[in-house]
């Protein structure tokens, strides 16, 4: 009687299955779950370096309660939150030069988990020097602390993408230190779905809420409302997502990239009309940010972003946010959210865990279907004992990336059909050039 299929009856609310099951395989992130084990094969950002001061910081990642701290000697530790002795939380512990002391009985743990001292115990006890508190390796990069929570014999190299190697950039962060406005009360997968669904930009970020993207001169990019031609290509790192739009005599190839499994790269949008350098008919725009969407647990996910600024540019992503950036955070009033929804509302509005069984995917959701397939393939790879996609073991040098936001001067041919083909051909040419560059 109740259906998750196509409802073909007006006033048919009664016919809809109300509680179809969620996709457990793709959405659960705890230890031992399929997607949880996949996500544990990658370095994940867990907090800002600046947040490690003189007190330990409780963190929750992939359903695990942990505590992060920086020893007075400067080493970063990431330990299971509950002391191996009697379970008191190490967030109330005292940071030392060599690690952290539990507040309850002063058991002393090193950043790698080793029990250095157990002062309540006899000098010869079965613990000191043998027992280890659960610990995870960390790495600091660009102001973020990353952790690896997977099997110790599978630690991958840190994902040093080519955008990080550019000499003309300095790095900023996409959310303020010390607070939690970057957390969305929702599952990681529906936040990732947003990227291979570039079509949402025209609707949500422009037609619905007014233009939420600004160019570098802070002009609202009204051209985003043009509905373009969508394409997706699998890359060695993930998925390249293009939308090619006709803007007068020019073609705008919007180019985003999903870094498997839970990271995206977005480029700077163009300035209209485009300024082609010295007689050229093409101009490319550099990467603007790399953003991880890190599961805290099944129903909470945090955004952590590294923003790319040219030297001399102020790091103002958060201090002078675009409407789109503002709408990424959880500190708006409900009325503001209702009047000007952004990514936060579109994603959180799907519920704590989006129910795929009641979706009706369309033409614009092809990329999202490719992405979900990649997650399933990744889960299979981990099950088989293989490295999943984008682990880059044995990489020599920076990892090539494939997003290439581009404007091309190519006036429209005389029929809409021919123009559509020209848009798609141009889009493909831009992608193929990124492939060729990666091969070099």
């Amino acid at each position, binding site marked *: 009687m109740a259906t998750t299929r196509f409802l073909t009856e007006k006033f048919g609310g009664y016919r809809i299955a109300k509680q179809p099951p969620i996709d457990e395989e793709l959405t659960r992130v705890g230890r031992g779950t399929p997607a949880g084990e996949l996500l544990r094969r990658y370095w994940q950002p867990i907090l800002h370096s600046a947040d490690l001061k003189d007190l330990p910081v409780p963190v929750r990642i992939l359903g695990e309660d942990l505590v992060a701290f920086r020893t007075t000697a400067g080493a970063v530790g990431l330990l299971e939150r509950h002391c191996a002795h009697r379970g008191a939380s190490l967030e109330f512990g005292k940071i030392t030069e060599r690690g952290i002391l539990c507040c309850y009985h002063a058991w002393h743990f090193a950043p790698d988990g080793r029990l250095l001292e157990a002062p309540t115990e006899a000098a010869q006890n079965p613990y000191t020097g043998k027992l280890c508190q659960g610990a995870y390796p960390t790495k600091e990069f660009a102001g973020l602390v990353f952790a690896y929570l997977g099997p110790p014999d599978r630690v991958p190299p840190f994902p040093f993408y080519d955008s990080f190697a550019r000499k003309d950039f300095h790095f900023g962060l996409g959310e303020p230190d010390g607070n939690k406005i970057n957390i969305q009360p929702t599952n990681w997968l529906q936040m990732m779905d947003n990227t291979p669904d570039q079509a949402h930009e025209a*609707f949500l970020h422009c037609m619905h809420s007014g233009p939420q993207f600004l160019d570098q001169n802070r002009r609202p990019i009204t051209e985003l409302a043009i509905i373009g031609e969508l394409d997706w290509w699998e890359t060695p790192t993930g998925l390249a997502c293009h939308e090619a739009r006709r803007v007068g005599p020019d073609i705008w190839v919007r180019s985003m990239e999903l870094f498997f499994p839970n990271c995206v790269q977005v480029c700077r949008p163009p300035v209209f009309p485009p300024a082609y350098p010295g007689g050229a008919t093409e101009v490319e725009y550099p990467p603007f940010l790399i953003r991880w969407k890190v599961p805290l647990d099944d129903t909470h996910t945090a955004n952590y972003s590294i923003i790319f600024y040219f030297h001399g540019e102020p790091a103002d992503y958060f201090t002078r946010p675009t409407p789109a950036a503002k709408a990424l955070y959880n500190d708006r009033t409900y009325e503001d959210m209702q009047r000007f929804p952004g990514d936060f509302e579109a994603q959180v509005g799907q519920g704590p865990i989006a129910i795929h069984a009641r979706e009706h995917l*369309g033409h614009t959701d092809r990329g999202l279907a490719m992405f979900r397939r990649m997650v399933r393939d990744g889960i299979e790879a981990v099950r088989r004992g293989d490295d999943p996609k984008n682990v880059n073991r044995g990489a020599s040098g920076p990892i090539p990336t494939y997003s290439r936001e581009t404007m091309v001067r190519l006036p429209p041919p005389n029929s809409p059909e021919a123009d559509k083909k020209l848009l798609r051909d141009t889009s493909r040419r831009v992608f193929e050039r990124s492939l060729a560059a990666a091969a070099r």
Partner: protein
Amino acid sequence: MARQARFLTETFGGYRQAEPPPPEDRLVRVGPGTLGGEYLRRFWHPVAQSAMLKGLPVAIRIMGEDLVIFRDKSGRVGLLEAHCSHRGTSLEFGKIEDRGIRCCYHGWQFDIDGAILDTPAEPEGNPYKGKLYQGAYPTVEYKGLVFAYMGPPEKKPPFRKFDVFEKPGLEFGLGEPVGGNLKPCNWLQVMDNVADPVHEAFLHASISGIQFTDVNGRPVEELADKGEDDYWETEVGVLCHVARRVKDAVWVRSMEYVIPNIIQICKMPLLPPPFTNDADEIEMPQLLTRWRVPVDDENTVEFALVYYGAEDDRSYVSAPSVALSTNRGGRTYEEAQRAPGDYDAQVSQGPIARHGREHLGRTDRGVALMRRMVREGIEAVARGEDPKGLFRNGAVAPVYAAETVKRAARGPTPEADREVVRSVSHALYQKSLATRPRTWR
């Protein structure tokens, strides 16, 4: 019926008390597909006040379903499943259109009946537009409330009107502030309250002080007499009387449980009654009709219509009686402890009252009758029949409650007087039976 925990027969016997059996699921569960939920879905329920529908959609939850309600720019009310059928984004962030509402994420537009009017991101000729429907429910606006029917479309009854709604010269106001009155507990224990009129003598009089006043603002001290209670099953529910001796008159407090989740209450009389030479009986007008609508298993929202005559001021909500203000949450804990009201008595039974630890008494006959009627309704629906109280054939539903004071000489002994009091109450019931539904000229 839920298994009854045994009567404890031991002093300091807390340790012996058995964990009460779980709630009777069919009575208290309200979600889609539950027995009680399917029963309730056969009736129209108020789900919002018209005043809630302004420029932005409103997210509501009714019987465990997340919905969005809005008035489109052509003035029509839409009630849709909250999650867009495309990718599940909540339509509470959508944009209200001339026809229907548009999802914020990819611009899909839904009419108020659920029809997809536009899928601008999809190519022409896609399989959705003009064929697929968002889940929708029909609505009716009536006297400032928006009612919805959430049951099987082929079983939809006509919108049920009561005879008392049609009385000439009446005007109606709302009984709650905008948004309704929320109680964090199951709907059934809120309803129990009405089939239990004897609680008024205790909770609203002797325990918390007199919480009711008459039209002149005098606290109705006579309420503290527990009186003679009686209950009769009617074709709409349970008529509940408490008859009290007041000098040379009998005051019959008359209220009604109306199937499935409605209470009907009359105004209290002036006491002693101002009889005139040519009248030794005064019938009081209706005060309100209040619906208790399940939000989910553990939350309930109240919406009421208040009856105003031409001479009445409209202060029911703005200057609430003590009884009304203590029916709302938001008081301090100390206030609630010192002078509890309906809210505290109902909510403190727990999110879902455990019938298995109750010990029903003589004054709970109405509660037992009401619960039996709910069970019978549930069983009728499970058998594929209409439950009692639907009024399909254009019939106006009668309301029997008719609060009355009547002159009656005191009996010679207390026992004899109790018989007098009860006989006045019974006679009033017989008169109500004979004169319903009311017709108005």
